[in-house]
C-alpha cells in the first residue's frame, strides 16, 4: 500500500491509470455506477445553466449535482477498498445480490432526487401523501447504500490474506465501519427532526461555499458530512502512521480515530444547540 503510494508519486499518469484499472477490476459494478454518476453530472450541470427555477434559494439542480458527485465519490471509494475483500466473495450469491441491491438503491435515490428537482418539489422532507411514502423508501435505500461500507469493514476484518500491515488494515476497518453507525445517528436525527437547519434561516443562500452549511445557525449536515467521510480520513491517518511510525504501532491511529468520533459528536451537538460550524469561515 505505501509502496503503491510511492510509485504513484513517481509516475502520476501511470499510477492513476493503474489505480483506476485496479478499482474497475476489484468491483466492476460499483466502478461502472461511479463513472455513470460522474457522467450524469454533465447534463445536470447543463440543466442548471439554463434553468432559472429556484428551490430553497438556490438553483433546483444544485442538489442533484451534489448528490451525483457525493454518491460517485462514495461508491468509487468502495471500489478502492474492494481489492482487500476475500477474492471468493465476488462469486458468492449473497454478495452478488447484495451489491446489485446497493446499485439499485443508489440509482433509485438519484432518479428521485433529479426527478423532484425537475418538478421543483422537495425530494427530502416532502410532506405530500406520496412524498411521505417516497421519503420512507428513500430512508430505507439510504440505509442500504450506506450499509455497503459496513459490509466492507466486516469483510476486510475477516480476510486474513489482505497483505496489509496491522495498522493499515485496522484503519480501513475502523474508517469503513464507523460510517454506518455515525451516519445513522446524524442523518437519522436530521430525518426525524424534519429538517437539518436549527435556529438559523431555512435557506441554502448564504451557506458555506460549495457545501452550503448554514452560517447563521446549526446545520446537521456538518456532522453527516464528517460521519460519512470517516472512510477517507481514518484510512489516510492509517497510511500516514504506517509510513512514519511503521505498520505495527496501533496507538496513534486508534487515538486519531477516537478524536475523529469526538469531532463528529462535537459537530452534531453544536448543530443541535443551534450554532454554525466554524463561523469564522464566513
Amino acid at each position, binding site marked *: 500500500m505505501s509502496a503503491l503510494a510511492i510509485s504513484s508519486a513517481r509516475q502520476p499518469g501511470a499510477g492513476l491509470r493503474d489505480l483506476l484499472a485496479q478499482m474497475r477490476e476489484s468491483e466492476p459494478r460499483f466502478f461502472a455506477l461511479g463513472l455513470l454518476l460522474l457522467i450524469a453530472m*454533465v447534463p445536470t450541470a447543463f440543466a442548471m445553466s439554463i434553468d432559472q*427555477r429556484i428551490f430553497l434559494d438556490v438553483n433546483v439542480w444544485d442538489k442533484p449535482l451534489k448528490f451525483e458527485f457525493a454518491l460517485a465519490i462514495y461508491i468509487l471509494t468502495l471500489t478502492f477498498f474492494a481489492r482487500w475483500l476475500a477474492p471468493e466473495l465476488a462469486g458468492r450469491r449473497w454478495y452478488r445480490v447484495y451489491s446489485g441491491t446497493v446499485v439499485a438503491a443508489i440509482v433509485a435515490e438519484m432518479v428521485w432526487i433529479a426527478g423532484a428537482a425537475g418538478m421543483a418539489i422537495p425530494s427530502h422532507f416532502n410532506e405530500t401523501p406520496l412524498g411521505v411514502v417516497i421519503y420512507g423508501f428513500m430512508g430505507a435505500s439510504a440505509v442500504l447504500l450506506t450499509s455497503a461500507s459496513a459490509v466492507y469493514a466486516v469483510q476486510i476484518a475477516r480476510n486474513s490474506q489482505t497483505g496489509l500491515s496491522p495498522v493499515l488494515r485496522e484503519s480501513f476497518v475502523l474508517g469503513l465501519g464507523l460510517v454506518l453507525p455515525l451516519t445513522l445517528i446524524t442523518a437519522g436525527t436530521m430525518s426525524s427532526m424534519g429538517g437539518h437547519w436549527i435556529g438559523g434561516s431555512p435557506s441554502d443562500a448564504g451557506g458555506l461555499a460549495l457545501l452550503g452549511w448554514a452560517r447563521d445557525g446549526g446545520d446537521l449536515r456538518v456532522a453527516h458530512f464528517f460521519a460519512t467521510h470517516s472512510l477517507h480520513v481514518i484510512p489516510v491517518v492509517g497510511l500516514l502512521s504506517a509510513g512514519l511510525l511503521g505498520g505495527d504501532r496501533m496507538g496513534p491511529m486508534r487515538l486519531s480515530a477516537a478524536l475523529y468520533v469526538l469531532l463528529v459528536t462535537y459537530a452534531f451537538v453544536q448543530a443541535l444547540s443551534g450554532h454554525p460550524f466554524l463561523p469564522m469561515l464566513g
Partner: protein
Amino acid sequence: MDADTLFQIASTTVLAGWASLLISPFAPTISDRVAGIGVPALLSIAYAGLVMAFWSGAKGGFDSLDNVALLFQTPQILLAGWIHYLAFDLFVGAWIARTARQAGTGFWLVVPCLVLTFLFGPVGFFAFLSIRAVKAPASALATA
C-alpha cells in the same frame, strides 16, 4: 443562456459535424468520431438538460397530435425537439458515410444522400437504403 442563443450554438455545432462528413473520404476516422459520436453526444447533453429543466413546466404530451403541438408551444421544449432532429439526423448521416465507405460505395452517390438527410432527414435515409438495395440487394435487407 436563453433559447435563441442555444439555438445558434446548436446550429453552428451541427454544421461542423456535417462539414466533417463532407471531408470523410480524406479523414474517415476524424469524421466518424466528430459526426458519429462527438457532436451527437454534445447535442444529446443539451437535449437532456432542456428536458430536465423545462419538461415539468410544459403543457401537452405524446398521446395526440394536439398535445404534441401544445408541447411545442413551450419554446425550450420546441428547441429540445429541434436539437433532437439535429442530433439524430447527423448520426444517421455519419452512419450513411461509414456504411458506404465499408461497402465501397462511391462518394458521389453518398453526397446527395447526405444533403437530403441534412435537409429532410428520413428522405436521405430512404434514398441511401434504396441505393444500397439496388447495388447489393441481399446485404441491404440483412443489415439495414
